[in-house]
């Protein structure tokens, strides 16, 4: 435990070095996010990231795993997710086979041996707890707001104690306390008990220059002029009344699409051809057309 902490301290002596490391992996974090990630790793304390879709919440966790050179274990939440999908499950087929095998051999079979590690299927949360190091894993619990409220209660033991309890085996404590990052799109309010255990950071849509820098970083093959045109076009789109204002992810998609079609410069016609990669609703299309495609392109 101490070894790994030393290693973490060496890797992340302060907030600035964390931000620099993130930048090298191609992820540009503002000081707020860098501070949040730093505290999450060094306190250590789970971190709840909130923000609109497409501001880079998931990407932040990936980039963090990248700079720590440690695996990223991702649990995508969805409605109806339960312990069997998140924590562990018994391998029933294998248990049945074991019983048949014991019968065929004429051995006596202990029940406890049927519920041993051999028959356990590790799901993401258990994997994170069981990870052997040398450094803790980054555990990404993605879109936790999609899971049912009851599911949050499953997470408490993991978040507070870094432990998981399996009734048949007992409590498993993490060798290396996982770095837990939860993300939420705020489709519903999370329970206080969950929030209480977490640090909190709200990721805003980045400023224009910051957005340009991020896109440039992510799509190096695009020319600078196109990138800055698209970044401003996205921020213009964000000012009109859309159902889903485009985020950074959409801006990146847009540049990709433009590069693929060989577009060198953004004009009304180019916007027309590629608008589908930014706006994903029929109504939003209409709103953008009404506002004027030339206006969107900035021409």
């Amino acid at each position: 435990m101490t070894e790994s902490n030393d290693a973490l301290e060496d890797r992340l002596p302060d907030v600035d070095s964390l931000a620099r490391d993130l930048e090298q992996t191609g992820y540009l974090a503002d000081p707020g996010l860098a501070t949040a990630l730093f505290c999450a790793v060094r306190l250590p304390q789970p971190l709840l990231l909130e923000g609109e879709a497409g501001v880079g919440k998931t990407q932040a966790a990936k980039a963090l795993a990248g700079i720590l050179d440690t695996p990223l274990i991702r649990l995508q939440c969805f409605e109806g997710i339960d312990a069997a999908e998140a924590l562990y499950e018994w391998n029933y087929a294998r248990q049945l086979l074991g019983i048949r095998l014991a019968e065929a051999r004429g051995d006596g079979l202990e029940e406890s041996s049927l519920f041993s590690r051999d028959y356990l299927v590790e799901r993401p949360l258990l994997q994170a707890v069981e990870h052997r190091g040398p450094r803790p894993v980054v555990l990404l619990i993605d879109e936790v707001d999609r899971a049912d409220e009851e599911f949050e209660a499953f997470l408490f033991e993991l978040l507070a104690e870094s432990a998981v309890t399996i009734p048949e085996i007992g409590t498993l404590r993490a060798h290396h306390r996982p770095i837990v990052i939860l993300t939420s799109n705020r489709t519903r309010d999370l329970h206080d008990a969950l929030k209480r255990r977490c640090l909190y950071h709200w990721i805003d849509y980045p400023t224009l220059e910051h957005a340009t820098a991020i896109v440039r970083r992510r799509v190096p093959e695009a020319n600078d002029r196109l990138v800055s045109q698209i970044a401003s076009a996205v921020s213009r789109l964000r000012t009109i009344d859309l159902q889903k204002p485009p985020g950074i992810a959409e801006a990146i998609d847009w540049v990709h699409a433009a590069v693929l079609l060989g577009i060198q410069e953004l004009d009304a016609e180019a916007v027309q051809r590629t608008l589908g990669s930014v706006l994903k609703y029929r109504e939003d299309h209409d709103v953008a057309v009404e506002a004027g495609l030339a206006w969107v392109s900035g021409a």
Partner: protein
Amino acid sequence: MPSPASPPTPQADLAALAAAFGERLHAAGVPVTPERMIRFAEAVLLAGPRTIPEAYWIGRVTLLTGHFQIPVYDRVFDEYFRGYVDLVEDTRTSPSQPASPLDAGERAPRDTGAQQSGASRSPITSATPGLDARGDADTEEMSLLAAASTSERLATRDFSECSPEELALLRQLVERLPLIPPRRRGRRLRRNARGDRLDVRATLRRAYRTGGDPVHRAHRRHSERPRRVVLIADVSGSMEPYARVYLHLMRGAVRSLGSEAFVFATRLTRLTRHLAAGGPDYAYAKVAESTPDWAGGTRIGAALTRFLDEHGRRGVARGAIVVIVSDGWEIGDPGEVGEAMRRLGRLAHHVIWVNPRSAAAEFQPLAGGMAAALPHVDTFLSGHSVRALEELLAAIREAGERRRG
């Protein structure tokens, strides 16, 4: 766990700083738990912030639990740390660049009066930047003692001009205010020596003793019942200095008079149960939680309409004394306020409007909502200090006895 980069700041001072800041934030309506204050202090030690923006982010990450709390945090942080300029730098080197990320002018929507009072309430922070936190604590303690010895002075002081310590004292004063339930005439007749009606039954029974002659007459009069009091307080941004004090008053009223208590900013929240069950801090946390638009604008008309529709006309307001605490700054349609007040006036026995801003000499009820409400208000009071609160309580008491006029 001292990190190698951290300055030789005594830990106790940091703890005091974190606790004081957390306290301030809590008072502004962000439910900050001690657990989070500890986390904040730990993170400050760990990251060793050198500039105000760095400290800003550490606090924001460790102390908040929701997006909607960010505006309040920004404001409190600005108020609290602007005086310190560079908290860590000061203890080590000369005063450095005042790198405040927060442009007070554009961020704080509050009027300049509040800003000035913010400055005057912490003379220590603005005076000498080299003063260490220990000195602060001493001076604060002194001022606290001074305040305690002059509760007379405090009694007439406007709540919005009080420091947090003075407010804490004031809350104790407020909790001790005598709450005498207003009375109303009950339906039943009770025997009473000074009654105005003859109690025939008792008179006849007494007449047995005097040979059948009704020498001793007995009288009856209507019994008295406590009259219901409903308190509705505005907790929007403009009312912030007063909201907390009024919560204490409400708590007393709910507990001893069985009053109903509501608060609103843009939505109405019933607080009766929270106040009856827990302390004011608990209730305050509940308000902050159920009012994500805390410190935002005010929709008095919508809140009052909702009160009437969901509570008032079902019986809560009927024949009651309704006290509304608000400065009348309506962001919605003032006409709606007028209409709601007209309905309320017909339901309630007596409507008291408390506007703490009306204590100012230059006050005129020009705020749209205020002007629309005034014709339907029976009693208009200021309630900006403890003295004024006593007037309010007297008005409530008298209103119970007065017949509708």
